[in-house]
């Protein structure tokens, strides 16, 4: 089943009177339980594409359907709701709230989703357990290693049972060992049925994905299914 469908998507910025086409006619369909890597050099539009897929941004023109819903006509509140319920973000710099414990960080999306407190606490605990942090729940980010922080971020992304997990250079700030652990978790999540979209410029990381698309100057230049 098609989860995400981008048709003829343009994102055009006006920088100093000059037209910049960050996305220049993108057509892309992503099915359920795909493991996709978006690659490309900096400036190729991969971040813009990721923000678009993550409903942080809306296209200048084109049609974006997320589970059959038209995203480009949604207002801010509707976009926030989609991000909250359907999309889990994992960032390169983790982006945890520094003053909150791991458990509280994971709980926040559930607060925005108006879920009752007891349920929230349980769901957050379960999500942290699933990434192997059962014993670190009440630590603050500065008491955790980089790998552990990224695992908290993955737990936060997963806690609402989203349709897709969007990971932007998830291993970019980690040593190779921690990076390897994080990729193992993502692989496992994919096996369990999650849809995962990776943004990376590292071939080693992209190898984990089953499908790789390459971007250049806002256009898709390559779209390969990898077989294992």
């Amino acid at each position, binding site marked *: 089943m098609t989860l995400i469908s981008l048709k003829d998507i343009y994102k055009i910025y006006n920088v100093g009177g000059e037209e910049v086409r960050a996305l220049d006619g993108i057509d892309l369909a992503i099915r359920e339980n795909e493991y996709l890597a978006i690659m490309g050099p900096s400036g190729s539009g991969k971040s813009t594409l990721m*923000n678009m897929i993550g409903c942080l941004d809306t296209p200048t023109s084109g049609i974006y359907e997320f589970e059959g819903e038209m995203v480009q006509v949604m207002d801010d509140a509707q976009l926030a709701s989609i991000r909250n319920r359907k999309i889990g*973000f994992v960032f390169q710099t983790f982006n945890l709230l520094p003053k909150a414990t791991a458990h509280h960080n994971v709980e926040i999306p559930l607060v925005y989703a108006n879920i009752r407190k007891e349920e929230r606490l349980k769901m957050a605990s379960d999500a942290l357990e699933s990434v192997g942090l059962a014993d670190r729940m009440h630590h603050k980010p500065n008491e955790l290693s980089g790998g552990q922080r990224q695992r908290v971020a993955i737990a936060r992304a997963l806690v609402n049972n989203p349709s897709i997990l969007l990971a932007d250079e998830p291993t970019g700030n980690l040593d190779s060992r921690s990076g390897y652990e994080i990729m193992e978790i993502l692989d496992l999540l994919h096996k369990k049925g999650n849809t995962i979209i990776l943004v990376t410029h590292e071939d080693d990381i992209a190898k984990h994905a089953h499908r790789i698309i390459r971007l250049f100057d806002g256009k898709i230049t390559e779209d390969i299914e990898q077989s294992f």
Partner: protein
Amino acid sequence: MIFSLFIENFRISLSAVFANKTRSLLTALGIIIGVLSVTLMGTLISGLDRSFEGSMSWLGKDILHISRYEWFSDMEWWEVKNRPRLLPEYVEKIRERSEYALAIAPVMQRGASLAYEEKETRTEIFGTNEEYMETISTNIGKGRFFTSSEDRSGSRVTVIGDGIKEAFFGEQDPIGQYIKIDNIKFRVIGVLEKQGKFLGLFSVDNQAILPLGAYKRIFSRRGWMRLSVKVPEEKMEDSVDEILSVMRHIRGLKPNEKNDFAINQTKAFESQYNTLKIAIGGTGFFITMLSLIVGGIGIMNIMFVTVKERTKEIGVRKAIGATNGMILGQFLMEAVTICLIAGLVGLFFAYISSLFINKFFPSTLPIGLSIFSIVMSMVVGIVSGFIPAYKASKLDPIDSLRYE
């Protein structure tokens, strides 16, 4: 379930406020001072009201005080300095002519030293007649007042205030004991009930009352005298008119001549008091408004800084599903929380101060005003926090996430 978001926002606010204690305190200072000044002003006025009411009932609302000068007057001194003295004979003359006068007491007053055994004190002594008790609100606590025959015969008897009794006799029965007033022996025949302070200024319990006959013979024929006239309370205006014409007749004034005496009432105090109250209230109001405006600007300023500092956090929150309204609510709540805490701190200091003030004159922190001041500080929080919070809510999530 918006409630859980509310709790979450409150929790964030508290942790943000306590994470920057010094900054929060400095920010909150304006609000603290504002709340402190408005509540202390209220305390002061409540205390003044109470002591004023008490003092006015001591002076007596139904008593006309005839004396040489007005209590409060804008007349020049040279206009009134040649007014003739009041004389004891007026008592009988007023009694003959006035319908409304229920009791008339001439009152002379001076300072004197009182002594009993080894103890000595300086105080005010009053010379008056047997009707004096009807013109004051105090009762005899013990013993009796003197009679008209004791007055006429110049008996050396005295009724003392509760303060004197406490100082000289303690638990001992003072009735029948002799005290010395300026070295002349007087027999104590009565003690007045305890009264407290007049306008919170001086105690009226330290006094000795003598029959005018003895007073005049021993101390002075001349000197100050006023007449206290009790009249029916419901006929105050008629009574003033009547006593005025009686006095003018006694003084033999022609219709075109001005009064050469004054009829004072507690009303005169009231208008003076109201002027004072407006002055205190106005000053307090001015200080309060000023510190709230300054405080509000401080809150707004610090909220702009907070929003700037936490741009990244705002981006993250939006990415994981916070709507603009939720972000607005979060920062608005933070501003209100600072103001609420500041208001409570201000109120706490006001309460401590009111206990301290209460030692000097009876007063209470008005509850209504306390609630009002807390509500007011929260309103300041909403007003000054709105623009920064609105700005935070409108931040672009992508730019905010990139912000370092």
